[in-house]
């Protein structure tokens, strides 16, 4: 097997291997490197007992209740399923109803005890004045994802 043939073989093998590797990874990665799960994923899987997990979604409209100055109750939803969450601590500035959020904690009988709450903002940037203007004229109907 001459050195030139070894080289050709190597090039061929490399291309084949790389192609199959990319295909393998593209077919399989999607659901696996999640920083968080969505509420509908939680309901159908069995990984929840006594394990710290993260759930990401949106704070459901009209679900936020302040129990005391530092303890809150709200629901996280992805429009298919929703989860009741309790939290003791300081909420980030951006946290509000309709806003995206990621919460970290454990399940306790269908109630999720959050230990950390992160707010998630979307990729849209818009001046506050324009939003006011839109709302005044009744054109503000942007749906959060």
């Amino acid at each position, binding site marked *: *097997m001459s050195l030139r043939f*070894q*080289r050709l073989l190597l090039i061929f093998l490399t291309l084949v291997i790389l192609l199959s590797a990319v295909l*393998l*990874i593209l077919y399989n990665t999607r*659901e696996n490197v999640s920083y968080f799960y969505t509420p509908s994923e939680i309901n159908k899987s069995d990984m929840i007992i006594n*394990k710290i997990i993260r759930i990401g979604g949106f704070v459901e409209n009209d679900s936020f209740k302040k129990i005391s100055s530092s303890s809150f109750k709200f629901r996280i939803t992805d429009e298919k399923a929703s989860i009741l969450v309790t939290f003791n601590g300081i909420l980030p500035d951006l946290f509000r109803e309709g806003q995206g959020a990621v919460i970290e904690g454990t399940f306790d009988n269908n109630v999720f005890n959050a230990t950390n709450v992160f707010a998630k903002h979307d990729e849209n940037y818009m001046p506050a004045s324009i939003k006011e203007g839109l709302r005044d004229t009744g054109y503000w109907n942007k749906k959060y994802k």
Partner: protein
Amino acid sequence: MKFLKKIIFFYYREYKLNMSGVQDILTNIVFFFLSVFIFIFSIGPDKETISTVGVAIVWTLLLLSSTLSLRKFYQDDFENGNLLIIHLNGFSFGFITILKTFSHFLFVQVPFLLSIPIACILLNIPNDKLLYLFTSFGIGSLTLSCLGSISSSMNLMNQRNFLLGSVIVMIFSVPIIIFSVGIINMAQNFNSLINILFGILLIVFAINPWASGLCLKLSIENN
């Protein structure tokens, strides 16, 4: 046919070489188990905690021990000129790195793989996941061999800063660790995780002969 014979006798040579230094491999395994004991003692008697961090511990130690043995990868053969002799015997540098990677996997990583089930028992890792874990360790350690080949060939001419090799292995092994630790935390989707690990292995395996081969050629040229 002649080439196949040469490959077989390349491994015969590697076998003889590694068996003459079998105490090194055994020391590596002793290091591995001692570290496992130290983890168990320092975490304390809480079996829950031990079993949750168990996989992470085994992975960290596997990574550490395989970086410990990096120096043997090419350095000896490079310094006493054997690498050159193997090349002159009709192997291209890229081919040498593939052969060497498998040899490292066979003679350094496989003894580890055999000792991992024992470590898993010591660390209270649930039995039902053992098969998947074992597969992931198998794929992962071959990936580590490829990464070790790349980093140690890069470091052949580097006399000053040997830790650099370990750093290079570690930075590229981050994705493997992320995916393989995912196995213990998940109840389903084992197959897709294993597939991803296999995909990473294939990518590293395809890059390895080119990167390492170039580095070997470079080092021999400038030695």
